[in-house]
């Protein structure tokens, strides 16, 4: 039963966070749908949150977790505004493909 007591190196958590962040960036670059691009941004935010929590655990410091708390609140506000913008864009252009949304004016 030794595997039950096995510890996990914190660097693995950090590595996971790095991989998730990179996947988020890749998604931001290759996805062609406005909503999915926005989702990739959320993925990046989440990846960073994971590393904050990991460091909070490492240094026994609650401020790392509080930072994540603030990131969550700001992300919620950002999602509300961002989705409202997406709805407005869709109304004006009736498409969500980022390649077609290439004019600055209506």
């Amino acid at each position, binding site marked *: 039963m030794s595997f039950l007591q096995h510890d996990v190196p914190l*660097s693995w958590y950090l590595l996971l966070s790095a991989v998730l962040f990179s996947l988020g960036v890749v998604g931001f670059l290759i996805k062609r749908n406005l909503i999915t691009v926005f989702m990739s941004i959320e993925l990046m935010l*989440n990846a960073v949150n994971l590393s904050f*929590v990991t460091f909070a655990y490492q240094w026994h410091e609650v401020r790392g977790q*509080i930072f994540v708390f603030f990131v*969550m609140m700001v992300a919620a506000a950002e999602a509300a505004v961002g*989705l409202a913008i*997406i*709805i407005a864009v869709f109304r004006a252009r009736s498409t969500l493909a980022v390649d077609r949304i290439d004019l600055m004016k209506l």
Partner: protein
Amino acid sequence: MHLILFFLFAGFCLAGAINLLLQTHPINSALSLIVVMTSLAVLYLLLGAEFLAIAQIIVYSGAVMVLFTFVVMLLNAGREERTLGSRAAARVGFPAVVVIFAVLATIVLHMQGIGSAHFGQGLSNAPGQSNLELLSQVLFHELLLPFEVTSVLILIAILGAVALAHVEGSKIPESGRTAEK
């Protein structure tokens, strides 16, 4: 125990994130992102952040992603056409991603003094003191002003969302309600 749970949910995270990239329909991407966020909540739990884990589920999986699925359903956005992005993305973006990942990975793997996570251990070693008390003590004493400012930020975000999504005689009546949330 910790090892098994870590591998299981890290696997879910990665699978969800890759699925997010591979799926062409936005609603499938949204659902895979929900899987990622919920698995991340379990990882937070393993790292002794039980409040954040639940906040992650309530705020991200339960509120933000509901908004996303709502918008996908309302706009009925079909599947996206596959293009490999702009030329700038291909030339600069992908090498940049590789570089970012390589730098992060090397830093992480060579980092000194990083310990390992032990199952069932929280932030403080004192038994009986919950993570919640620690968090609230710092949040409501030292960081009260930032906390209050964030509430103003959220209020502004709500107003902005309503103002953006609401048009006179709007064609999509539900959109105002979505933003209201």
